[in-house]
Structure formats: structure tokens, C-alpha cells
């Protein structure tokens, strides 16, 4: 038996010589750096990584990663990646996409990838704006937002990417933030460890067209009041003084003040393995309600759903085991045949 030696990489091994064309100050730089560090730590040979992207600022990502990379067309990255993953289930295939790419033009592929549970890791760069086309609203822009294409404000209700993913029966759904480097890396490692589809929404700032997109989440002073960290097995507590909590009330959630007889034991304890998707859905909707914090972390992580590419390849192996490997000469002569002699 030979012992395989794990490759030792550093972040540098995943950098390319290509000039990065993102605007200075863009949140994408932080995401790139986190991914490069995480890949270096995974102990997987570099040639096994493939990054597939669609169109948009975020979709330039593959050019800056020293792995195999494929910059495809608008919205179609999950479909290209699905074809690749079915043929090569052994590869680590990551999809880099944005809110327009994944939720607007590519919405159909996103939901079908998730319901099939293809073993792809999706990095959704959500900056709530169209950057590359220079400033139109996106499917995650808030109602009333004034943009180049909506000078009087948008009239569209936005998508909540987490709700959409959960509604598509995604098996791993998480949210992190470009500037929360430690949390982001930790979340990406969890996504990497997940077997099926892993959908990671990364709240990302566009300092040119939507500066401060996530300011309520990232601003140091306000941060602790406005976010709640989801940690498996821990109660949902938030607030500058960690004195507020989320409590289950029937089929709903409510905010409670700790003290006056209310203790941590009364709070909802986060369970990313909760058997009902409705639980993760409840969490996802908190941010739309006045006074509720935005949840950050892993909403849902189910490991007992088989990967699509494995099901397909298992079926082929089963048929081959039963019928034997196909014989072309026999196949061509199958059905009713007749022979004409000279």
C-alpha cells in the first residue's frame, strides 16, 4: 500500500499572473483571497479544482484562480458545471456567480441544480446591483431603490437567495460576508466538506454602484445589533450586550429580552440538521421583519441526500453489472435482422 502525500499549498499557489480587473475597493478581492487560502488548506491536488462562472463582475473570478477555470455565458454556469460533474464526479467544481447571474438570468439553472443536489459549491456574490452593466437594479435590490434603470425607484419585490435555495430543497445553505474573513473561510470550508450542492451567499459590497449595500451588517457599531450568528447547537443570541434572543412561538419567531426570568434555555437552539426545511425558512425570513437581525452562518446542512452525479453513475454501473458492458457489434445487429446472401 502506498501512502498518498497530501500536497502542501499556500495561497500563492492559487494566484495567477493575470491583471485583476475589479475596481479598487471591491468586495470581490476579499472573497478571492479567502477562496485562495481555503483551497490551499483543503489538501486537494490543485488540478482537481475547477471554477465555472457565468457573466458579471464576480464571474471574472476563474481568471484569477490558478486552477482549471471556465468563464461561460450569462446564467449558465450551473448547467455547464452539472455536465462536467456528471462526467467527472471526482473533481472539486465551484461555481462563481452573482445576484443577477444566479437569480435572474440563471434562476432556472440555480433551482434545478439545487433540487438535483449536484455536488457543486456555489459562491453567490450578492451586492444587490448590476455592476458590470454599470448600475441597474438586480433581483436582490430592495424595493424603491433608485438606480440607472429605475430613476423613480424599483417596484420589484426582491428575492431572498436563502429562501429560494431552501425552497429548491438545497442541502447546504449558508451566508457569510466579504469582510468577515474568518467567518467566510470557515463557511467555505464547511461548504467544501459538504457532498451535495452547497449554496453560499456572500454579502458583498460594490463600492462604485451600491456602496454600503450591507452597511447595517458590516458597520462595526451597528453590526452586533443587526446580525445574529447561526451556530449549530447554540442559542440564537444577539445585541451589543448579547442580551437579546430569538424564541420560538408556535410556528413563528419572536425577539425576547434576556433577563426578567427569560434565560438562554428559553431560546431557539440552532439546528442546521433540522429535519424540516420550514425551520431554515423561518430563519431566512427574519431579516425582512422590523427589529429582527440578519442571520449569518449555516442555515441548513443535510448530508443524507445522495449526489446527483453519483446516482447517474451508479445507475450505469448497475446496468453494466446486470447486462455486462455493451458490445457494439451486437448492438448494431440488435432488433429484427435478416441476412441477404450473394
Amino acid at each position, binding site marked *: 500500500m502506498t501512502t498518498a502525500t497530501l500536497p502542501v499549498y499556500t495561497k500563492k499557489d492559487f494566484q495567477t499572473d493575470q491583471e485583476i480587473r475589479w475596481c479598487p475597493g471591491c468586495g470581490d478581492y476579499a472573497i478571492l483571497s479567502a477562496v485562495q487560502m481555503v483551497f490551499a488548506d483543503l489538501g486537494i491536488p490543485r488540478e482537481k479544482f475547477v471554477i465555472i462562472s457565468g457573466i458579471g463582475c464576480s464571474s471574472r473570478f476563474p481568471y484569477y484562480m490558478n486552477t482549471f477555470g471556465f468563464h461561460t455565458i450569462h446564467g449558465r454556469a450551473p448547467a455547464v458545471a*452539472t455536465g462536467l460533474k456528471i462526467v467527472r464526479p471526482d473533481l472539486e467544481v465551484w461555481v462563481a456567480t452573482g445576484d443577477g447571474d444566479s437569480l435572474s438570468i440563471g434562476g432556472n439553472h440555480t433551482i*434545478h441544480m439545487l433540487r438535483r443536489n449536484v455536488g457543486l459549491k456555489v459562491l453567490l456574490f450578492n451586492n444587490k446591483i448590476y455592476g458590470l452593466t454599470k448600475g441597474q437594479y438586480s433581483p436582490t435590490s430592495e424595493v424603491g431603490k433608485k438606480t440607472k434603470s429605475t430613476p423613480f425607484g424599483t417596484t420589484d419585490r426582491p428575492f431572498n437567495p436563502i429562501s429560494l435555495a431552501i425552497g429548491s430543497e438545497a442541502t447546504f445553505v449558508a451566508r457569510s460576508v466579504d469582510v468577515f474573513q474568518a467567518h467566510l473561510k470557515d463557511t467555505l470550508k464547511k461548504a467544501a466538506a459538504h457532498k451535495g450542492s452547497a449554496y453560499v451567499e456572500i454579502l458583498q459590497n460594490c463600492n462604485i454602484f451600491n456602496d454600503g449595500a450591507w452597511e447595517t451588517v458590516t458597520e462595526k457599531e451597528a453590526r452586533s445589533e443587526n446580525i445574529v450568528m447561526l451556530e449549530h447547537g447554540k442559542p440564537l443570541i444577539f445585541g451589543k450586550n448579547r442580551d437579546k434572543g430569538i424564541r420560538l412561538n408556535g410556528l413563528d419567531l419572536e425577539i425576547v429580552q434576556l433577563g426578567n426570568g427569560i434565560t438562554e434555555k428559553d431560546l431557539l437552539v440552532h439546528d442546521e440538521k433540522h429535519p424540516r426545511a420550514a425551520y431554515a425558512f423561518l430563519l431566512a425570513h427574519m431579516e425582512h421583519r422590523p427589529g429582527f437581525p440578519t442571520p449569518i452562518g449555516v442555515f441548513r446542512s443535510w448530508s443524507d441526500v445522495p449526489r446527483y452525479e453519483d446516482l447517474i453513475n451508479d445507475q450505469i454501473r448497475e446496468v453494466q453489472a446486470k447486462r455486462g458492458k455493451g458490445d457494439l457489434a451486437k448492438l448494431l445487429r440488435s432488433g429484427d435482422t435478416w441476412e441477404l446472401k450473394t
Partner: protein
Amino acid sequence: MALTTIDIPKRKREIIENAVIRFCGDSGDGMQITGSQFTNTVALYGNDLATFPDFPAEIRAPAGTLPGVSGFQVHFSSSDVYTPGDSVDVLIAMNPAALKMNLADLKTNGILIVNLDDFQPNDLRKAQIVTNPLEDHSLDGYRVFAVELTKLTRAALKDLGLDAKSMDRCKNFFALGMCYWLYNRSMEPTHGWLEEKFKSKQQLVQANKLAMKAGYSYCEATEAFQISYEIPPAKLAPGVYRNISGNAALALGFVAASQKAGIPLFLGSYPITPASDILHELSMYKDFGVITFQAEDEIAAITSAIGAAYAGALGITSTSGPGMALKTEALGLAVAVELPLVICDIQRGGPSTGLPTKTEQADLLQALFGRNSEAPIPVVAPSSPGDCFWIALEASRIAIKHMVPVIILSDGYLANGAEPWKVPTIDELPEIPVHFETNPEGFLPYRRDPITLSRPWAVPGTPGLEHRIGGIEKQDVTGNIDYEPLNHEHMVRLRAAKVESVANDIPPVVPEGDQSGDLLIIAWGSTHGPITAALNAQREKGRSIGHVHLRHLNPLPRNLGEVIKRYKKVLVPEMNMGQLLMILRAKYLVDAQGYNKIQGKPFKTSEIENKIEQMLGFAPLTSPEDDFDEQAGE
């Protein structure tokens, strides 16, 4: 009416060369199965044949109505068969609607078998017929056999304990039995099929066998037919044959290509008429490692195939015109990233949803040019159902050799039509060499082979070959993003030159018929049959005509321009408004004439012959609308 028969001492059996039979009835009457069974039986006997299934787009329009009529025509012969036949010798019409829609194609004095039980006032009303054709002498020009198919079938099956509905479902096999008697054919092949098909439903096997036998015996006992026919086997080249439809042949061809190339086959497809059978067929071949992916839409169908090609598989996608329209952006991506891919467009009538179950050749310009910017793609077209097998291999070979997407233009007529196909041996299949790049030394993703101009196929997972590709304009050799004006022009010209280099492997065209002379017919795709039949008939009359049938539509064979110059006139028959014509006129500055039929139906031999005679001055010229025989029904 011919039901009362006179006693003739001995019934004749006449040996004839060929016959055309059309089974038609309601969509629920099982006409496609009846026709297929008859076809299979004559094929096994050794006749050459061609079939034309013609069915409505609706799954099952109301019973007995005109839109619900489904038909299956088979032409079988002791000599070469090129078409399903212009007109029919025997028409089996299961109801008045079928009669109304199909009678115009029955030859004078042809045999007409109708189900007398379905000619009640209500049936006539549903078919919008005012007077009963069985009584108003409108059928006097035909040999009419009005048979109580329903009653006789029920009588034959009365002991089986089936309900009336189930018994009535067998009446198509009563009619089939009659045809077997009429053409003196064994019922054995159909017995075998029934036993296989209804393995677990012995009662149905028995019922259909009994109904068929009853039909056969009916002809024998009633002496309704004074004559039966014998069509000896055809003199086809020796070998093993099977009957095959175009879509089944494409599927087999792709399996063969994957085996010869030694790489897995991946089909990404979204169901669409008339292409879905390719998906159905390939999904059965899992023992060959075939991967079929029923995608969420047409775009995912092609992009998943691109992903599979990137992974080193033979990526294929199958569709029809509306699906092609949706795939165009992805086609451009495949051109830009230079990955091998095969796209099957099984053409149907358009625009938009158009005529989903009817044939047309109007996607040629879409295949050649239907993409943004300069995005050349090789285009090939099969000429017969059996040729679909070979075109699948040819398209795969070009795609892999030149790292390029290739479009196959088949059509509804080839897809569903069938013919005897000589099964090749493995040695007769072309080699499809595949080279995956593995050497990191000096590897650059767009460094090209000097002859084929193809870039290396470097699949993910290969150590040391990490690189990036994409739809954005790139620098030649390195593949790095590059917007420089001169680089763009260089890349546009390179991609065009690469496609043009495919012509290096295209054999020079050799016209069928005369090698020079008065008229050259240039055509492509499914029109091969009627043109060949017309060419043979006209040359027997001493006319000097050649015929070039193009399999490669882009690039065109190198000697085509030279061949054109050897003839005084050029005729281009197409089932579109003149798309190849436009290309030929533009490329060769030749005053070619179009002959265009856009009716969802293939050309008849007589129509082509008439056009040839017009072109050569033997027949008066007519306006385009008058070019065609009056169509049945509607």
C-alpha cells in the same frame, strides 16, 4: 359495393414489382403500430422499402375528427426504393375522417378498405361529410371493400372475455391480417412481436393474434379479393440488414462514435418533437456507459453538453428548430472555447411552434449563421434514415479532430421514416482518434495544430495543465483575455480558417447520373429519395442530368464550383424558400433556379420530374403555386 362476390374458380396471384400501402385512422386506432408491423414483416422478407409516418401534433384529438387522423405509409418493392411513394395502391381508412383526409392520394382503381361499422351518420358528421361516400358513387373509381371491421373483430374475440373497448382496440390487427393475405405475407414476425410486447398480458397476445388471423381468414373465406399479390425480395447488396428510423440510426451512430473514440457519450437534451426519440434511444444504452441528461431547458441541454465536452466526453445535444433558437448563445460559446460538440437539429415546420410533426428544411441558414458575430460552425446533413448513422460518426469525427461544434441537420421525415439498413461491421466504422493533452511542458491552451488548427483538449484533473478558458476574446496561443483590435481580427480569421480546413477531409463530389450536361440538381438532406427516383426516370427518357447531394453544407466540398460549370442549368429543390440556393448563388455566382415546397410534406417524385421537364423545355412552365399536386383534405 364489392362485398358481394362472384365465384371465381381459382383466385389469381399476381407477381408485381412494388406496392404502396397507407394505413390511416384515428390517433387511437393504432395506425403507427399497424404500419410498423407491416413494414417489419416486408423488411424481414427482403423487400426494399421506405416509410412515411404522418401523425398529428395533438396527442389525441377528439375521436373521429379530421385533426385526429394519423397515417402510416409504406412503399415496398423488389427493386430499389427511394421514396415512400407519391400515391398509394392500397388505402386502409378506419373511419370517414381518415377517408376524407387521404382519398386524394389513392390511385385510380386502387384498393380501398374501410371500416363499414364506422360510417354511421354520427361518424360522418364528425368528419364533416354530408353524404355517405359509400353510397353516393364518389368512390366509383376505386375497388372498395367496406368491411364490418368492428363487428367481425368482436365476433372473433367473443370467447376471450374481453370488454367491448378492449376488443375494438384489436380491429387494426384485423385490417393488418387482411393486408398480410393481400400481399401473401406470413403473420409470424408479428406474432413474435406481440409475444415480446405483451409478455405479461397473454390475453392481449391472444386477442391480437386472433383478430389478425380473422382478418386473414376473412379474405380467404369470403373471396372478397379476387387477387392477391406477390412482391419478391429485392436484390440488395449482400449482408445483414435491419429496418431503422433516422432518429434510431443517429443514436446508434453516436454510440458507435463514442466507442470508436474511446470516450464516454453525454447527451444533454430537452424533449421536443421530432427529436425526442434520440433521447429515448440513448437513454437505453447505459451498458455502453452512455449518460443521458434530461435538462431543465434547451439552454441547459447544450451547456451541460459543453461542460461534458470540457470534461473529455463526446458532448451531444438534440433538438428541433425552436430549441436551436434557444441554444444559439451557447453555440457561440462552444465556438469561442473551441470544444468538440455535436448538435442535432431535427427540423420541423416553422416559424415558432409551426408544424411540430411535419417536415421542413428551413433551418439551414439558422445553422449556418444563427449566432451573434462571426461564429462559423461545420454543418452536415444525412440523406436517408440509414445515413443518419454515418452522419453521426462524421459529425463526431469532425468535432473531435477540429475541436469545434458541429451541427447535424436532419428533419422530421428522416427522423420518423424508416428503411432497410445494411448493418456495418466494426471494421467498416471510421477511426476517431482522440488525443488528450497531458504534457505540461510548454502547454498553452490555444497553441494550435498547424494542419487542423485545433487547440489541445486539456481536461480538468490533468496535473500541470491548469488554465482558464471562456467566451471572452482571448489571445491566440496563451488564451489570456485580449481586446486588442488586431488580435480580434486574427482570432476571427483563425476560427473561420479552422472550419474551412474541415474541407481537407471532404471527398470531392461526384454527381449521380451524368457527369456533365444539360441540368445539375443540387440538393441536401431528405430530398435525396424523390430526386434520385426522378433522376433515374428522366435519364431513362434520355435526358442529360446530374445530381449532387451535399452531405457537407459547411464547408462545401472544394470541387463543387468546378462541377457546377459542367452543366448548362442548375436546379436546387428544397423544402424551404431557397436557402441553399442563396448560398450557391452567392458563393459560385451561378444562375441556379430554386424549386421550393413548404407544405410540411416531402417532395413527390412526379413533382421533381415535372420541374426537370420544365427546366429542360419539355413541359410548360407554371407558377410556383401550381407546381404541386392538389393535397388531400383540408
